[in-house]
């Protein structure tokens, strides 16, 4: 019943019902502009600084470069060369891909199968088990760290990619199952009845009917989980450990902070590299991105 509502509002969105012509006046527009400007300044400062010459960064504010954009020797890409090479951000980028892609696909797959079973296959204990999943939605990750670390050093999963995948899968599962269940349980019953009449097994129904229809929900969760894993510092610190070989974007940036704390040209370039892929996803898939963010929040 609530499913079609967003589609309807999206079409009527451009003209909001309570927008009087008079109030669309200058003060509102100016304040909107000012807010947007203020919100962007910090990121702009980072971006500008990352392509400035190191000597100039420490002697003048980054805003002075914008006033004199054609000054000699002003801009350089050497900061990026340096952090990607000796700063280790290049290797960390690859490590982040190694960590993030399976840590996104594995929980989605496992959650989709589980959500389908919770929604459409009757079995004993279904209600109580799903209630547990809902309860686990808000359990802080901190509750798991100490026992997982003990478990991992016993199973030689500490400091491995497999270990991080499993951890991110476990931590991401409650939300993934909950979101996909909400979506899959609202698919029309007729679909499943006619599939059963045609003699389709649950596995076939799931792959041929449920998965293709669930792409919006799967995509929304994928973006949410991708961002969370890509930007995660805590799990990487705890499970990948201090090894330089295994640094991912956030831990590599943290290492830069520790070793080159005062060198803003490297910190800004490094920080921008960590933001590159999420920003790209954001700009290319903005609508799905919004859906992912909205979906990730809706718990009531």
């Amino acid at each position, binding site marked *: 019943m609530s499913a079609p509502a967003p589609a309807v509002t999206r079409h009527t*969105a451009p003209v909001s019902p*309570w*927008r*009087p012509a008079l109030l669309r006046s200058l003060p509102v527009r100016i304040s*909107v502009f000012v*807010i*947007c400007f203020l*919100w*962007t300044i*910090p990121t702009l*400062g980072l971006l500008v600084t990352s392509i400035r010459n190191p000597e100039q960064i*420490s*002697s003048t504010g*980054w805003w002075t470069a914008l006033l004199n954009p054609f000054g000699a020797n002003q801009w350089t890409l050497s900061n990026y060369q340096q952090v990607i090479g000796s700063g280790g951000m290049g290797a960390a980028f*690859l490590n982040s891909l190694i960590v993030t*892609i399976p840590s996104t*696909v*594995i929980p989605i*797959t496992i959650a989709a*199968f*589980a959500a389908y079973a919770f929604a459409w296959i009757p*079995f004993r204990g279904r*209600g109580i088990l799903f209630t547990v*999943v809902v309860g*686990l*939605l*808000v*359990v*802080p*990750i*901190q*509750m*798991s*760290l*100490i*026992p997982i670390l003990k*478990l991992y050093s016993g199973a030689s999963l500490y400091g*491995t990619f497999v270990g991080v*995948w499993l951890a991110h899968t476990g931590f991401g*599962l*409650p939300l993934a199952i909950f979101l996909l269940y909400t979506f899959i349980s609202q698919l029309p019953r007729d679909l499943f009845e006619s599939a059963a009449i045609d003699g389709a097994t*649950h*596995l076939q129904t799931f792959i041929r009917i449920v998965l293709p229809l669930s792409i919006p929900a799967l995509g929304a969760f994928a973006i949410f989980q991708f*961002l969370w894993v890509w*930007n995660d*510092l805590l799990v990487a610190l*705890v499970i990948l450990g201090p090894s330089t*070989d295994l640094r991912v*974007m*956030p831990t590599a*940036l943290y290492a830069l*902070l520790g070793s080159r704390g005062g060198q803003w040209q490297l910190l800004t370039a490094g920080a921008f590299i*960590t933001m590159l892929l999420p*920003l790209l996803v*954001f700009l290319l898939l*903005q609508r799905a991105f*919004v859906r992912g*963010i909205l979906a990730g*929040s809706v718990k*009531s």
Partner: protein
Amino acid sequence: MAVGERTANPPLSRFLLPILGVVALGLCIGGVIILINPHGGQNLLAALYDALGNSSGATDLRNGHGDQLLAKVILAVIAVGVGVGGIWLLYLGVGGMVGMLRPAWRDRILPWVFVGPALVLLATFLVYPGIATVARSLFDGQGHFTLDNYAVMTSPEMVEILRNNVIWLIAATGGSVILGLVIAGLFDRIRREALAKTFIFLPLAISLIGASVIWGFMYAWEPAEQPQIGLLNAIIVAAGGQAIPFFTTSPLNIGAEIVIMVWLQTGFAMVVLSAAIKGVSTEIIEAARLDGANEPQLFFRVIVPSIRGSIVTVTTTIAIATLKIFDIIYVTTGGRFHDDVVANRMFHEMFQFFNDGRAAALASLLFVAVLPVMYLNLRNFRRQQVEA
């Protein structure tokens, strides 16, 4: 595709599919073995070089030089193949095998094939560790019951940490929600709404540590005789003031760190609340307007009450994120200037002081703090189940 083939040509697929399955399974196991080894990528490439007769390249690799990047790319491909392929193989393989059983058995086992992996992972990564953490906080090394780990919470140092968490909870959550609400309401009145919202929303894609670097540069402080390269201190100095070392000045540093969180989370609040505002029915708004409500009244007395549910959702989501705040403190000050919080302290108890009991008690404290939200979630869920 494979399913279609099977119906068209059963004898072939009957042999082909199991063989392919076994091969894929072997590849996955091999891949996992390579991945468990910290130098798996290098060793594999070195072995390849040996086989090709390039022994100097192989030696370089084993000594940590040579084509490290190529080794890393190979590792990445294997990792993605194993992680993504392995999980599908598991389901299709086991699901297919269960499908061959007699119907009575099949129907009994199949649901557990679908939910089993999820339940095992939830039990391993959330349920068991949660119980173990609470237990660890309540028993000492010899297995005797003790409340010592909680008794420490009354020390002045810990009281300060708890106070800081409360400040965070109120200021960061309140700040993000109120700003998000005002911006959503304001932006709803302009023509290029989507474009304007993008600016506020963009920081959501940025990690907490990335945002900390961004704002660390905004707050940058230099001694008085040097030029201020941080924007905020440059403004203060230009206005005739004295530059402030934001991160080391207590209690200002807590506010400076909270600003980072608000900058990130306001976009989230704005997006959710903006969607809710657009869902408020036109009739209610028109009726209020006919009754003579002015625009601020309309916003605060009609629109805000109608989107109460969304406001609660946004508030609890941001509050939970704020409660667990770790990254910002860990990377800006490490909590060394009277700005420590529970999650950061827990990390240091674990890895610096090796005091698992106290770390477990701090984690349990966070857990207790989210219990009301868990209760609300469960109640809402039950209510929906009854309605459905």
